[in-house]
């Protein structure tokens, strides 16, 4: 079934405790060279039928109203998945 991908990241100015903890763990595991990590979310919305403009618009609204918390997160992309469904 066709899919829409929604990507959400913590706002850059907001503290991201998870990213911070990962960033400080990486060098201990021998992964050096990374200056920082931020952790966000990736949603796959499976669409029942074709992905019309309407559906995409509805996904955009869902992304800002429900899949993200606008106070601390940004929706950075809402797009049709171009890869084959796994």
């Amino acid at each position: 079934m066709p899919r829409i991908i929604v990507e959400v990241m913590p706002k850059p100015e907001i503290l991201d405790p998870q990213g911070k903890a990962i960033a400080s763990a990486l060098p201990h595991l021998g992964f050096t060279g990374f200056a920082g990590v931020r952790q966000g979310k990736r949603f796959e919305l499976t669409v029942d039928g074709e992905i019309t403009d309407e559906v995409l618009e509805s996904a955009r609204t869902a992304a800002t109203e429900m899949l993200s918390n606008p106070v601390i997160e940004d929706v950075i992309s809402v797009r049709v998945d171009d890869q084959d469904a796994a």
Partner: protein
Amino acid sequence: MSTETPLIGNFHAAPATTPLGGARIGVVTFPGTLDDRDAARAIRLGGGTAVPLWHGDESLQGVDAVVLPGGFSYGDYLRAGAIARFAPLMSRIIDAATASSGTRLPVLGICNGFQMLTESHLLPGSMVKNEHLKFLCKDQVLQVENTSTAWTSQFTPDELIAIPLKNQDGQYLADANTLEALEAEGRVVFRYVGENPNGSRNGIAGISNETGNVVGLMPHPEHAVEAGYGPDDATGMRNGTDGLTIFTSVIASLAGSAQ
């Protein structure tokens, strides 16, 4: 005399006074570990000696067994137990628990400790967020289904016990083959009784490895070791001490193997 409020990693454990007290059981503290003092208390009340171990150390200090206590190591950021399993001491524990010669180190992972054991593949499967997505704290009844592990030898087969459950990521998952193997080999050590509190597959609350020295469970036996501070039981409010048997079991089995 009064006990000091112990600092983490400094339990002021009472020295061994009982014959079994010679059993030295390590309690590992990671950044964000919460139940290390409780685990140390449980070991002491069970008759053993608790030895504080620090995640960043390289030595197991010759302990006879290890408890990976509950908490939110590294905030449970990324995945519960995911960052902690890379600690230097975890490598020592993995080696000692899977040693090909000699006795294998008994290891108990409670809650976050269980999550570390699955993250480090000492135990199969993994934990994901509770089905209802909330942190849930409650008195939980379990059935003890395997009494041949190092940590459960003093329970009677199929004994029902009540100990606290408290977690956010407690839903046990494994693929069908793994589940089948766990069931077939009797490696489901604890199973939830009554309503499944988090959606775990087959109602699994705790499992063991193939050799029975490594056991992990989500509920907290160390919170049910002292009357007055545990879950409710038939004798009254907060009187449940069923968790103590886990600690006396390992201490007894250590005493047995030492002879």
